[in-house]
């Protein structure tokens, strides 16, 4: 039988050999040509985000100037802080993200925190996170993740950050933050302690906890909140879990997603920004464009099935580099409410999933595929 399987390493070595062979064939002049061409290619590809130092930013900015209402916000998500004496790597990572965002020039309109600030909802974890996030220069908007909530059912979180469900208007865009990780009471009947409950929710692949929902009361709230907005109002909805059904065993899932989507269906353009999945993730269902957020703590592997076809999967993180595949990012909101989603990977090149990509159902502005396989 002819072997058809090639390991990742074999393919990597083959590509590498090809590359070095091609370099050997270059004389000096064509080497310069190649380097120059590479420069141009980088500038022309989606690799160049509107980071302050890139000269292409000039064109971004002039575009922004002609569209009075477009704006930019930054995001940080999924830091999963332990107390610093137990694990300081995640603490350092969150501080790195804050440093990153504070370095943006010009500063974003606000910074959105995507949930799971704490690992086990402990007061000290949440306080530590709040303390670090206070150092952000731009105003903070923050969302609940299940890791923040299920020790004391949000008591400490609300104490620090206020109500978890809220909305606001920003430059003509209506923004809504939901608590999308509501679970049915699985703990009372089992006589679980708050910590048992927290640890159950924090786990994957268990049959004890119930799937996440937005829940009837919040759906009602959402309907009322949106009642006064016309169908062509650009809408951005923030939810910790993806507002669709991706992979149930890992709770990459919102059980009443269809009902929430129905409430959003009358709007022309809706963008849903979600945390929880710790990876590059893109989806579109009808009028709703979904974008995932990178985590600062760790990257998750991709769900083994049911991946949205629009998703360009990031490549497997380097096991020698604990921050690989992690990062933060920015969202450039256009006047029609659709967004360029910028993934600012640490130790990788930033990557933009452009407005035109989801708007064209993946026909245009296709993000560059990574040269290594995903996982």
């Amino acid at each position: 039988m002819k072997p058809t399987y090639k390991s990742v390493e074999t393919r990597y070595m083959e590509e590498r050999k090809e590359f070095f062979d091609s370099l050997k064939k270059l004389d000096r002049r064509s080497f310069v040509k190649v380097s120059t061409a590479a420069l141009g290619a980088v500038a022309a590809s989606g690799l160049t985000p509107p980071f302050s130092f890139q000269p292409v930013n000039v064109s971004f900015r002039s575009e922004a100037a002609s569209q009075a209402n477009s704006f930019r916000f930054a995001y940080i998500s999924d830091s999963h802080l332990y107390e610093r004496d137990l694990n300081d790597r995640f603490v350092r990572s969150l501080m790195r993200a804050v440093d990153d965002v504070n370095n943006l020039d010009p500063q974003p309109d606000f910074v959105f925190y995507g949930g799971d600030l704490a690992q086990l909802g402990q007061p000290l974890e949440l306080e530590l996170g709040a303390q670090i996030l206070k150092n952000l220069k731009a105003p903070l908007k923050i969302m609940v993740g299940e890791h923040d909530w299920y020790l004391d059912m949000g008591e400490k979180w609300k104490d620090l950050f206020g109500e978890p469900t809220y909305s606001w208007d920003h430059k003509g865009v209506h923004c809504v933050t939901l608590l999308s990780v509501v679970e049915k009471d699985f703990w009372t009947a089992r006589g679980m302690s708050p910590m048992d409950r927290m640890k159950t929710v924090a786990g994957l692949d268990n049959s004890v906890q119930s799937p996440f929902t937005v829940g009837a009361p919040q759906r009602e709230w959402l309907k009322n909140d949106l009642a006064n907005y016309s169908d062509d109002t650009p809408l951005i909805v923030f939810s910790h879990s993806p507002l669709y059904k991706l992979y149930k065993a890992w709770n990459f899932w919102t059980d009443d997603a269809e009902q929430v989507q129905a409430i959003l269906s009358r709007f022309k353009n809706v963008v849903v920004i979600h945390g929880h999945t710790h990876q590059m993730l893109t989806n579109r269902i009808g009028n709703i464009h979904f974008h995932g957020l990178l985590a600062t703590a760790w990257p998750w592997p991709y769900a083994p099935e049911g991946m949205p076809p629009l998703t360009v999967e990031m490549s497997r993180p380097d096991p020698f580099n604990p921050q690989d595949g992690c990062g933060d990012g920015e969202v450039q909101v256009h006047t029609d409410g659709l967004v360029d989603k910028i993934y600012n990977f640490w130790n990788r090149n930033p990557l933009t999933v452009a407005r035109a990509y989801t708007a064209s159902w993946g026909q245009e502005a296709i993000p560059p595929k990574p040269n290594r396989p995903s996982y």
Partner: protein
Amino acid sequence: MVSLTSRIGVLGSLTLAIVLCWGIKTESQSGTDIPRTDHGAATMEYQQRLLDKLMPEVDATKVPEGFDPVIWDAFIPQNNEMTASRVALGRKLYFDKRLSEDGTVSCATCHDVTRGFTDQRPTSEGINGQIGRRNAPTTLNVALLQTLFLDGRSPSLDHQARLPIVNPIEMGFATGEESAAAIRNDEEYQRLFQEAYGRGVNYEDIGNAIGAFERTLVFLDSPFRRFLLGDDMAISADAKEGWRLFNEKARCTACHQMSLSNPLGTDNRFHNVGVSARHQDFESLAKQGVQALKEDPSEQKLEELALATDMSELGRFMSTTNRSDIGSFRTSMLLNVGITPPYMHDGTLPTLWDVMDHYNKGGEANPFLDGGMEPLALSEQEIDQLVAFLFALTDQRFAEENEGQMKAQKAAAAKSRAFRDDDMAFRQKLAFEDRISK
């Protein structure tokens, strides 16, 4: 009476001779006994005599000892096969100061045989006393590197070798042709170029020949290699403990993979470990860098920017303009590291103890810091053991220089450990903490 005085005299001069010997032995790196000339380098004659002693009768066409022929072959470019005449030509060129505009700088000025094939100074001095921004890397074992220059901007040794000749602050010729013209009247060169490459004196073959010569500088025979080959007595107990730490707690092996088949101790990749974060703002520098490359993307401009401006600190970024490459440099090889101080791309760390201090605190926090950098919580004893291991990586032929370096560095480290930060190393203070709470 007479005999007594003469006896004292004999004893005295004997003592003097011993003191002198000792002095020479330990101070060989400061070079009190070595005839020195332009820019502090040993005279070319002295260097060549020393090289004869280090490498008697090399057969360039043979695979160096300890190498798998298939692997060695992969490192030799097909358009520049190793021949005796090419190596002989390259060797002559390596030591020839006529390849610099004012006739004071040869390759061997900054890659000095007496100084571990470096200049052992923070950054190098070119023509007219101009000081560059990069620490001269050793030319030992460079045949095994996948990219050349600390930022990897050159793909091959043959290509790399001709660039310093036309760098305005190194050897300073305006064009490669001018450098070829400077030696074209030399009849020996005419003969050697003809023999080696079948054509007259030209710039491209200058690089090819120097590349061929440098490929013969294979110096792998370290005590550590002998240890790996089964000689348990080859390295000290401290060095053995250092090797264990190297692979475990100190995390060195994450980038400096090292084995019999991969002896250099580099992953050939580019990492930001924060060396220049101490004195540079990467963001604004990157803006300047992109602008400068836009105005003039030529190879020569890149050379100049890399060596003569602050943009040097951007490292790999200047070749790729990838944001993930900002401030990153190729992982240094560790073979012979003991005899090539000072350390890092800008030579800012004077001793291996300082290097340990830098890594022990998890490097210098900056937005582009490699994610593999962690505070290491190494004790002083562990640092000493790691350094003992690093000094066991020097080829036996440099044993004396290595010994002297170890003593000198130890003495310097006893006086000052400027980069030591126990609060960071033991996580009392965390990376980025100072920066975000400014």
